[in-house]
């Protein structure tokens, strides 16, 4: 018996991803785009614009007065302080967590991912209540300790920072993990073979590759830290000029029927949102450029 065995098994390694578009009639895409656009205008643009319209309803003078009101000013200050503490901490944590999860294999990885997702799963109000249960000076779990040391967390800025820290914890890691996983480890390995230390590899290879996603996720964290209402509302106690953040201040103005003032302060948060959208677009574009290879 005889047989011929061909052995030249060639692998075609050309991963040429070509962008394709569906070849259908022109009517359907136009129709779908129109629906999306109308929905987008109704749900997003109209409310956004109306915030500003309402804010300037009674003139720029009142707008300025609402923002520069001493109590509003204190609220803005507290919000800024919260952001400046929360954002660096969560950025560093998110970066380390994403790096570990995306680039290394270790036991308990899934558990870590679950923990990072926890703040997304828990309602902010419940999160706030958890902090009250832990740190309240009258019935909290750590009440004796806090009373002994004279530390006040609930109904104090510290509680607001803690609650915000908890709520905004997932943003950086969640944004970076998929990107870093997609990028793999080959560039880092190349750097190692060229003699770069672990730190230099991170600094010169990993960081530049995730730069835009990182910037965007930091903006997202900042925006959420500025705008967080539920959890902060529970731990704040609404002490004017002391534990009121911008969103809480807006609520107070609103409840007092000072609509123009409420919208004026709210417009500050809206501006942050708009900046976010712009940075998100730049980031997406840059990431696309980078991963084109």
């Amino acid at each position, binding site marked *: 018996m005889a*047989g011929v065995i061909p052995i030249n098994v060639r692998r075609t390694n050309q991963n040429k991803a070509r962008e394709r578009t569906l070849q259908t009639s022109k009517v359907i895409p136009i129709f779908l785009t129109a629906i999306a656009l109308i929905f987008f205008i109704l749900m997003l643009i109209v409310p956004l614009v109306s915030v500003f319209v309402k804010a300037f309803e009674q003139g720029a003078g009142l707008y300025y007065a609402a923002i520069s009101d001493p109590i509003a000013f204190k609220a803005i200050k507290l919000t800024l302080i919260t952001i400046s503490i929360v954002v660096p901490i969560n950025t560093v944590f998110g970066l380390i967590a994403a790096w570990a999860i995306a680039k290394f294999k270790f036991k308990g990885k899934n558990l870590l991912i679950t923990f990072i997702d926890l703040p997304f799963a828990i309602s902010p109000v419940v999160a706030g209540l958890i902090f009250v249960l832990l740190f309240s000076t009258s019935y909290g779990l750590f009440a004796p300790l806090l009373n002994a040391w004279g530390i006040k967390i609930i109904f104090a800025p510290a509680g607001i920072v803690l609650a915000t820290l908890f709520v905004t914890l997932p943003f950086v890691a969640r944004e970076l993990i998929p990107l870093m996983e997609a990028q793999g480890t*080959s560039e880092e390995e190349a750097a190692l*073979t060229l*003699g770069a230390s672990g730190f230099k590899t991170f600094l010169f290879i990993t960081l530049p590759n995730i730069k835009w996603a990182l910037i965007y996720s930091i903006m997202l964290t900042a925006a959420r830290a500025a705008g967080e209402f539920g959890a902060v509302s529970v731990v704040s106690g609404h002490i004017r000029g002391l534990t009121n953040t911008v969103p809480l201040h807006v609520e107070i103005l609103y409840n007092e029927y000072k609509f123009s003032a409420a919208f004026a302060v709210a417009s500050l948060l809206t501006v942050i949102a708009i900046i976010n959208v712009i940075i998100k677009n730049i980031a997406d574009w840059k990431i696309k450029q980078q991963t084109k290879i």
Partner: protein
Amino acid sequence: MSIEISNITKTFDSFKALNNIHLKINTGELVALLGPSGSGKTTLLRIIAGLERADGGSIIFDGKDNTKKTTQDRKVGFVFQHYALFKHMTVFENIAFGLKVRPSKLRPSKEEINKKVHELLALVKMEELAKRYPSQLSGGQRQRIALARALVVEPKVLLLDEPFGALDAKVRKDLRRWLRKLHDKYPITSVFVTHDQEEALDVADRIVILNQGKIEQIGTPEEVYDNPVNPFVYNFLGNVNLFHGRVHKGKAEFGSLKLDVPEHLEARDRQVVSYTRPHDIEICLEAQGHEFIAAEIIFIRAIGPIVNLEMKRVDNGEYIEAEISKENYRNLKLKLGQIVYVKPRDFRIFIPEDYVI
């Protein structure tokens, strides 16, 4: 620098990717790791580079144990299968990277780095493209930049993982010849992975044939091609005709074909497989004794200096492939459908129980 791989074993979960690998690579050699997909080639290369930890065994460079050293300390050049160029850096920055990241005491000055990078750009003939980004290069250009980047730190060991895998046939041929010249010019020991036997036979000093995490054979291209130690290597290195038959006291029988096999004098009625390369098939127009079998020509490809013939045995209907020179083909005046007489001029007989194909 010589590399001694001894007793290397690597298991992923419960899968044995490498099983007890022993291999000594001499200083200045260009060695090809050849094997089918999944045979452990990349894994072995990564273990040599320190990118992967072996479960057991040791890696010795120039007599010094490197098993526990980090990748950075091993100072090997590594060219990755998919280039792994730094996307956010220009060609120039990519090549300069290995020098720039040195600790400040060992780092060359800016001018020196500049000079060195241009030297390498000239070497890979890419001087005009220094300012481009990797995404703006063709596959072959990326490959050459990856090589230049690895060479900039003047490694004594160069490891290449399917360096030409993603390129078309013409470019790979040019690049591998170029790699051979480059290797000869520098005092460097190179190991390159490939699953293309032609590539390995073409440029390597020695070929290591891997299969399922084990080394099947080590030898020069001539040795492994002409004297494969087992059926796997025979199959892997070029086309081959198989004849299944029996051997008894030094006589082999493959249907109507009878051959003398003095090396199997002790064999008593055993199943055997005979291997013959297509160019070792002799074709005659008339039968001459028992060493010939009748076959019908069913396919002829007469393009180029070598003519490929496919034939069907008259006695059992099995196929035989042959390669003959154009001259011979013209002399014999072969035609489709013609009955010819075929004999294996050279063959190797393996007793299958000893080997698993």
